[in-house]
């Protein structure tokens, strides 16, 4: 498919790895910021393709992994309430809180629903005016505008039974904290592309 196949050409990837090997003259420690990058690097063995003097360190990861236990517990407590439809991106359902995960809670009868877009949660709220529909608003800079649009749309359409449990995090302060940490070895970052599309 256009814009996918061209960038998945193994021959091109091997040529790039060779070019990196030619260019690297001293050890480098680079951190990939995003969990999606880590996934691709490990899945396709990119860490083994590039010269050993270039060390890749896994970074802060995705907002799913960095959501605090306290926030998961709050989600759990809200989702367990009888008059609530709790909506979330699918990735959050298996993240364990101190009283289990949301998927288990759903198995016990709580109305927990997976949505693709935060706007789907607003639609569910409109379809169920007698329920409180809560969306688990997690994400980095990339997702914040989508979640904000859901709030804006709910207000604009007078949907009063929609609310959001907000747990957004910013990438640049995390990067600054890593660089300022005593004993930091990271010399460069592989920027998260989709966050950059939004934030920088």
């Amino acid at each position: 498919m256009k814009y996918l196949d061209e960038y998945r050409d193994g021959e091109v990837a091997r040529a790039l790895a060779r070019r990196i090997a030619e260019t690297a003259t001293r050890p480098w420690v680079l951190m990939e910021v995003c969990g999606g990058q880590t996934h691709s690097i490990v899945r396709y063995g990119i860490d083994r393709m590039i010269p050993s003097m270039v060390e890749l360190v896994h970074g802060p990861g995705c907002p799913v992994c960095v959501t605090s236990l306290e926030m998961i517990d709050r989600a759990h407590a809200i989702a367990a309430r009888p008059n609530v439809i709790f909506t979330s991106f699918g990735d959050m359902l298996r993240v364990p809180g101190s009283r289990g995960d949301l998927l288990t809670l759903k198995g016990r009868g709580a109305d927990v629903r997976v949505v693709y877009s935060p706007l789907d949660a607003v639609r569910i709220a409109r379809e169920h005016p007698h329920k409180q529909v809560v969306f688990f608003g997690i994400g980095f800079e990339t997702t914040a505008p989508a979640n904000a649009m859901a709030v804006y749309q709910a207000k604009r359409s007078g949907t009063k039974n929609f609310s959001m449990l907000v747990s957004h995090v910013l990438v640049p302060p995390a990067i600054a904290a890593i660089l300022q940490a005593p004993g930091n070895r990271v010399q460069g970052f592989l920027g998260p592309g989709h966050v950059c599309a939004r934030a920088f």
Partner: protein
Amino acid sequence: MCLGIPGEIVELREAEGLRVGKVRFAGITREVCLDYVPDANLGDYVVVHVGFAISKIDAEEAARSYRILEELGQTSELTDGAGPPGDPVKPT
């Protein structure tokens, strides 16, 4: 949820004050909010994240990047036999 996936805009319309449309990815077509890419039109490619197009793919930029990759691919013959990938190549 972290993924941004490129797709082609195949339908455009207004719904409840929002610019929405259908975007075709490899194999599937989904309803997408296009409010954040006001300059994107039918037939354009956009990166979609959690149901929102977050940026237009600049066809020229994409083609230019790809040409560079291709050039690297073509020049790869020059380094053939210079050792397996993963080992630094000594400058000659």
